[in-house]
């Protein structure tokens, strides 16, 4: 089994197509949608976790590419700017997945992008503009 967190960007013509449904039905992939934003006639974006055999995942991603869906790894989507961060730790209290934690001795922020589900709770919690979402 392989697991991948991805950001899918759908061009307007694909918004009416059941692309995600096909990923499940045709490629036997387990799909967990973490976030989605669909603007009719403009763009659709979904953050999802895909789980399946290496082959299914490879085939599924090829299918997405054929359809014209842009696939990006999720790590680039949320940024922690260390030089702006003052290590106040306000973000850690609102992060639901422990993507933002405090190193207990140094009391500094540790950002683990692989745990991030792009909920963006940290953005409002940060008074210093140190968290930025590209979503």
């Amino acid at each position, binding site marked *: 089994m392989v697991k991948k967190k991805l950001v899918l960007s759908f061009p307007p013509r694909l918004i009416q197509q059941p692309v995600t449904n096909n990923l499940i039905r045709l490629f036997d992939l387990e799909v967990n949608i973490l976030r989605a934003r669909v603007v009719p006639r403009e763009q659709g974006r979904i953050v999802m976790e895909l789980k399946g055999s290496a082959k299914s995942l490879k085939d599924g991603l090829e299918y997405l590419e054929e359809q014209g869906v842009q696939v990006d790894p999720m790590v680039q989507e949320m940024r922690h700017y260390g030089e702006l961060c003052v290590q106040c730790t306000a973000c850690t209290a609102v992060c639901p997945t422990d993507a933002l934690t405090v190193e207990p001795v140094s009391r500094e922020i540790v950002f683990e992008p692989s745990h991030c589900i792009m909920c963006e709770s940290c953005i*409002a919690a940060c008074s210093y503009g140190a968290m930025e979402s590209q979503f």
Partner: protein
Amino acid sequence: MRSLEEINAKIKSGKVVVVTAEEVVDLVKEKGVKETARMVDVVTTGTFGPMCSSGIYFNIKQSTPKIKCGGGRVTVDGVAAYAGWAAADIMLGCTAMTDEDPRNAVYPGLFKFGGAHVIQKLVAGEKVKLQVRTYGTDCYPRKEYEAELGLSDFNNAVLFNPRNAYQLYNVAVNLGQRTIYTYMGVLKPRLGNANFATCGALSPLLNDPKLRTLGIGTRIFLGGGEGYVVWPGTQHVPNPERDAKGLPLTPSATLAVMGDLNGMNDHYLRAASIAGYGASLAVGLGIPLPVIDEEVIAYAAVRDEDITFPVVDYSEAYPLGRPGSLGRVSMAQLMSGEIEVDGKKVSTGGMASRARGREVARELKQRIAQGGFFLTRPVAALPGAELAQGL
């Protein structure tokens, strides 16, 4: 044990022994109060966090012809400043905003640029745009003036904070049903999180809880430069309830501080945009405590386990001014990342930065050890306090 003059002589000769308020905890655990007091001359403290009661005043060089700002209207980078003084003195508070800012009309407001951001730009060496509109007089005929000015263009620029360095602060929670946006940060509903605003065992006024060695006239680390305690802070409470260790249990001491803005920097003066609340200035502030007797060390050995803070609901109790709290939690519990309120586990986050407060205490330690910072004797005690005998 040792006088302030002896400590300053040791600073001058480079023989002074300085430790931070965190280091003193382990030292006392290992060697005891008596021996630590014999070894150590100075304990440095530090804190860093948003302190809304902060601002600057500055004096501009006159234009030709001259202009009288007093009684007119002044903005800096569009942010409203106060000019109700003489011709060229202007004050800018860190929470001031531009007229155009929607504030909370679009809720929660972002408060991207306010007085604090102007202050941060100035200490970072950037120029700001001053705009004056006023009435003309025979001696000050000019009515409008615009200029791009940096810190070095002013005759004087002073950080003046009427209320900083709270000794004790609330831990904020939200018992309501919707997310609220407060000066204690974003608080999620139904006890979603708990925010604290203190550096605990490193915090200046918690290491000298009875204010025995500091008062009006004490030289301090301020915003990366030097400053002074100039007065009790506004809302200073002279005689709070205290626990057995002398730590306050109810609202207590605050400080009014000031210092030359020249020499401060944007690492220790940082603009904060607190969502839904407003702009604020995060200030780095550190106070050196002279070890004139053993009691100084006994108090400075305070641990995060010892210090407790009241947990207060900011959905109703705080805005409606209802007294009481939901209980007390220790700094050690707050730093563990989780506290228990009403039987529910609640994750904790800070508004103050312990990491940067530590930088303040270490930098102050270094300046003293290198002979660049001398200690002062307070000229007067703060209200409710009694200065130590022999200071």
